[in-house]
């Protein structure tokens, strides 16, 4: 089991041998600037950005062309609890970053703790969102309540689905950390998952501002 011996950052090469997501070795003698796994997740995020851009674009078309937004007679969105929830999600981004720093220094016990906290924060975010939805449905805001309800549930739901995927992914990384499969030498699984996690955190404030205000 890897001990938590501190290894100074930058002394550990990013990739040595085959790691998760590293693919097959190329004929190049030099390792690529960005490893395959990291490049792939960045490309994926480029596509995801377009998906969110499509949904946000559609949302703005409705919001900006409506005479009243939110339309009269429909419940307002709960701002205070969502502010708190925003901080929960942003905090998870910080703990994720601390987890990446921990694995770079080979502090495995700290890594496990931080990954666990991050996943928990993600789960709390989802739970609060879920309870918010239940409340809104009870107050009569539904998918079929005009474009206001429809865009709220699809856009926020799209983000929620991404958080859910990120939590599941993070749980897999967490399990790998618990099984002792991660170390400063085998850390790309954490780093790649972190990139996705940051994306999910970074999209949220944009949605929060556009949808709730």
């Amino acid at each position, binding site marked *: 089991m890897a001990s938590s011996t501190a290894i100074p950052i930058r002394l550990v090469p990013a990739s040595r*041998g*085959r790691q998760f*997501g590293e*693919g*097959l*070795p*190329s*004929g*190049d*003698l030099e390792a*690529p600037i*960005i*490893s*395959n796994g990291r*490049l*792939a997740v960045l*490309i*994926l995020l*480029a*596509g*995801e950005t*377009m*998906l969110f*851009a*499509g*949904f946000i*674009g*559609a949302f703005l*078309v*409705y919001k900006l*062309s*409506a005479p009243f937004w939110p*339309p009269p007679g429909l419940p307002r969105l709960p701002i205070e609890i969502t502010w708190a929830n925003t901080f929960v999600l942003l905090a998870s981004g910080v703990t994720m970053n601390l987890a990446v720093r921990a694995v770079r220094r080979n502090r495995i016990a700290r890594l496990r703790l931080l990954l666990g906290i991050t996943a928990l924060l993600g789960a709390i975010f989802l739970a609060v969102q879920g309870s918010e939805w239940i409340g809104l449905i009870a107050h009569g805001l539904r*998918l*079929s309540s*005009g*474009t206001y*309800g*429809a*865009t709220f549930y*699809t856009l926020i739901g799209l983000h929620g689905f991404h958080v859910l995927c990120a939590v599941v992914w993070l749980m897999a990384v967490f399990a790998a950390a618990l099984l002792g499969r991660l170390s400063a030498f085998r850390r790309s699984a954490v780093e790649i998952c972190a990139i996705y996690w940051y994306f999910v955190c970074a999209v949220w404030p944009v949605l929060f501002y556009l949808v709730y205000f």
Partner: protein
Amino acid sequence: MSTARAEVPGAGSTGRPQPGFVRRCIFSTDHKTIGKQFLFMALFMMAIGGAMAMLMRWELAFPETPVPLMSWVPEPYMYGGAIPPNTYNSMFTMHATIMIFFVIMPILVGCFGNFLIPLMIGARDMAFPVLNMLSFWVGAIAAVILLASFFVTGGPAAAGWTSYAPLSAVPIYTGVDWGQNLWCISLIVLGISSLMGSINYITTIINMRTRGMTFFRLPLIIWALFITAILLLFALPVLSTALVLLLFDRLAGTHFFLPQGGGEPLLWQHLFWFFGHPEVYIMILPAMGIASEVISTFSRKPIFGYHAMAYAMGAIAFLSWIVWGHHMFQSGMNPALGSGFMITTMIIGVPSAIKVFNWLGTIYKGNIHYTAAMMNALAFVAMFIIGGLSGIFMACTPVDMYIHDTYFIVAHIHYVLFGGSLFAFFAGLIYWFPKMFGRMMNETLAKVHFWITLVAFNCTFFPMHILGMNGHMRRIYNPLQYDFLKPLQPINIFISISAFVLGAAQFILLANIIWSMAKGKRAGANPWRANSLEWTTSSPPVHGNWDGPLPVVHHGPYEYSSPFGEEDYLPQNVETPAKAAVAG
């Protein structure tokens, strides 16, 4: 071999046992097998899409008369062989959907992309072989979902391949219920498949190039596939957005595209064409790449203006994002916006013309070998010019107002997609067939197929320009119901007969593929005396692509008739003799 770089597990040279049949032929992670799987899937779908085109042509030539040999089709689809209007709507919808998403994209991007990228950049496989396998199987699931829609109540989608809302958003408008839902789901699933593919292609091309293979030594088809993958990556999520919203409208009672609930029907068109216009370049850029390879090889000349070709593709890709409104001149969009889209669209003519002139420059004073592959590539250039010129007509708002949604449009898209993409596919298939299957395609059969296809193709689609200029509507079921279209009926009959010949000619291609796979002349490693890296390994290449170490690249891929070599070609992995002499 350097110890830092372990050999690939399962490579031919390691002496490991070959994987079993299932791992080798069905759930294979070998990019070459996956490429062939895409090819066979696309050929299968092409037969279905083609058959529907034949039925449509029968209906247009001999409206509401029973189609011969089709009386066995059960009632809601056909009545004793006669095609009812709703089946006709489904047919043109599914013909286009199948041909675009399940034939041209799988062939050009799936088949040639998978097969060629690792071989031409000098890699043993894709960056993510398992993801690559998933990409094919997810694509196959999408195809099954689409085909399943033929068997649900109400039949398959019938709102056109563009599925404009609100026509597509309310089941009773077309009489199609789950057909349209499955259409949406199928394309969402296909989008996931394409996303996986494009992640793989981009990563592989950036990270897995062999030593010496700089970006400007890449063959142009690799440039084309690289740019295509980027277009796919950015375009398909926008289509997915539109499809998800449409599905919500149909299933969950939302009103995204329905005016009565505050929805915006025009938004569908914006989202669809924001995807749709890059999509047409997704379908032509790889074809341009194939033409560049084939024309250079068989002219025995370096490609004219290599850098200009690469930059032109980049420019086309960039411009493709800011032209989507030219599909919507009639939609009630702000006319000032229309002028902007007209200008950006016409600007695309510039990089396209650069490419055409560079192909002509390549042929000029070349030592042209009229092989079947070369003939198809030349036909690609010629047909693409016709399709491109009719595109300029349509880009012009005042002209487009007149010809919008007429057969002129049908003529244009078939000149670029059949005359362009499919002729390039024929060229690429004949050219890389020896590398794929280890045997040459029969040259005589290929030439017979080429000539019949070329003549029948032009007889089919050129008269459609005339129909369109006379006001023949694009998606009309029975042209005889309008008096002003009755005098044009002989043209329709001529087109249909040509189309039947065109369809029948494809059996020659099919026979050639099957015969050549089994009995074709065995091919050596480099039957065309070409330069790029795939010709430096055996035909078909071993698992892991090269038996020994990976080739090292010394120069670009188009060094034909080089004064430095003794032969008239200089493979990329051979050091330039003059340079070697200086170094030695």
